[in-house]
């Protein structure tokens, strides 16, 4: 049971990285990024590519993988999302959905459909005892890294000039633009950074969750449940939602095994009956 809770916290910290990106991009550009899971997978494969092609170690790969994905994501935003910003919201949904299929198909084309396991990198390949339970130390280290990164993202949003602009646009796009905030450029930047966060999560999680072309889909579904639960575009909602979803899933997993996603879905569905705008935030429904 204790291990389940610990696993939930670890998974929650990864979900937080991916849902923060989803939430930011939605808040800024009303873009629901269906390709977010594919970018997460891209992070994992970029890690493999760097490790195999350059012969670099895990840590270098972890650093480089997000840096490889960010320019690709920025190019995607410029080519596919930017030109249709004036169209109804649903068109960007459709495009990112197609992009997701393209990226996953491309990964399968280059790397095949097999699952790759990565051993936990060395100083963190040991097992520790947490209250008498064996636990791989890498999970704790990875969770700390993702929590640190998430915290710094939230700090940047809250206290930096860029963060101020992002919050202004999320609050009232028209007014913010009238005051001279360049929404387009900001969206490109944030889209790239959100993809970087997803890629970091993918690379960081590779030794825990294994690498697979469809690895992004499960975490995308969970992240979607997080943002729907927390309210679309609400960062605070994402934080609470991520840990709620992860803990529900891992604790539920102890009782329902493979049915834990169905159980989680039921919980979220009941939450939505009571609060259609998101259980925790004053999120937007449409």
């Amino acid at each position, binding site marked *: 049971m204790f291990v389940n809770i610990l696993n939930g916290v670890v998974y929650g910290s990864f979900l937080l990285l991916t849902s923060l990106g989803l939430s930011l991009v*939605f808040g800024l550009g*009303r873009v*629901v990024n*269906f390709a977010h899971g594919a970018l997460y997978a891209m992070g994992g494969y970029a890690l493999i590519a760097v490790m195999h092609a350059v012969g670099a170690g895990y840590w270098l790969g972890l650093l480089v993988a997000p840096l490889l994905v960010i320019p690709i994501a920025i190019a995607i935003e410029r080519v*596919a999302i930017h*030109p*249709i910003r004036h*169209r109804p*919201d*649903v*068109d960007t*949904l*459709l*495009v990112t*959905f*197609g*992009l*997701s*299929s*393209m*990226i*996953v*198909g*491309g990964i*399968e*084309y280059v790397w095949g*459909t097999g699952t790759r396991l990565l051993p936990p990198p060395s100083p963190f390949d040991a097992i520790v005892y947490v209250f008498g339970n064996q636990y791989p130390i890498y999970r704790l280290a990875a969770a700390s890294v993702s929590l640190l990164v998430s915290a710094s993202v939230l700090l940047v949003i809250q206290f930096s000039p860029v963060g101020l602009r992002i919050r202004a646009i999320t609050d009232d796009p028209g007014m913010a633009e009238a005051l001279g905030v360049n929404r387009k450029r900001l969206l490109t930047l944030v889209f790239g950074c959100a993809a970087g966060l997803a890629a970091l999560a993918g690379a960081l999680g590779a030794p825990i969750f294994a690498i697979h072309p469809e690895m992004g*889909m499960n975490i995308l*579904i969970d992240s*979607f*449940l997080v*943002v*729907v639960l927390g309210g*679309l575009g609400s960062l605070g909602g994402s934080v609470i939602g991520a840990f709620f979803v992860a803990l529900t899933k891992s604790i539920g997993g102890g009782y329902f*095994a*493979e*049915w834990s*996603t*169905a159980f989680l*879905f039921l919980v*979220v*569905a009941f939450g*939505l*009956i009571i609060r*259609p705008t998101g259980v925790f935030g004053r999120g*937007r*429904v*449409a």
Partner: protein
Amino acid sequence: MTTGAPASCDVALQAEARKRRATAILIVVGALLLAGLPFVGVPPFTITLLTEALIFAIWAMSLDLMTGYTGMLSFGHAAGFGLGGYAAGYFAREVTADLFASLLVAELVILAVALPIGFVAIRLSGAAFAIFSLCIAQVFFQIAVAWRAVTEGMDGLVGVPLPRLLGVTINVGTAFYLLTVLTAAAICLGLYQLVQSPFGRTLGAIRANEDRAASIGINVRLHKWLVFVISWAIAGIAGTLMVFMKAGTTPMSLYWIESGNVLIMAIFGGLGTLFGPIIGATTFVFLRDVLTTGFEVWQLAFGVVFVAVVLLFPSGLAGIVSHAWTLPWRARS
């Protein structure tokens, strides 16, 4: 109409009625033409593809009712299709392969599931609904993988017998094709009547603006709920036909790629037109047959086509046609 109605109103109504009758005749003639194909030397393989295309067309039309006519963008329309397939296939294998009985069971299962799920889902609209619908289908996918006692996990349900209709076994081939044509034509006619009815007009009002529709006294949630359930039920008919055609089904019938497939069929043909999805489904099946050399390549190609269609032809083939139609009008006014 009431006696006090102005003459112009009568004329408009008559024109409307004429248009409806013409469209109904068009559907019947189209179905008859399609039904004649096996008898004029069209090869069996093409007939098989056409059968698949028509089943997909039924499915795409059901999505069109929800997305095109009511404005509820669903990324999880594989759910009704796959669920219907599993229910019908399991029943046909374990109890009786009677088509009506299997279909009835499939529809009962879908009703039992779609009523509560729809009750929740319709509270969301726009992007949130789209996300939620994807989650629904993905949860069904995971259940289909996990519930091995019934679904046999990733291996899928195999060994579904040939369907029987009134005691006669229907062979996959010409007989099954004719059955599919009949079903597709009936559903097309039915949906056409539905979208032209006052109920259908109400859906249009909801698509245009939910809040305004509510403000003039339309029960938006009730209508969306009904549409959700009807749409799933029709998708279940398609799923039932498909499980008999393929003699089985796998969890992949519930996968997000399938939801994307049906969406691109409807969009490619043109949302909000019943004929669009039929053309879209046919194009899709024949294109996939040409392009398939490997699953990865297909998925990559599918993604490229999907993005290209949405970027370049946002309202589909039907949109291009009607756009070309309205251009002279715009030029004049």
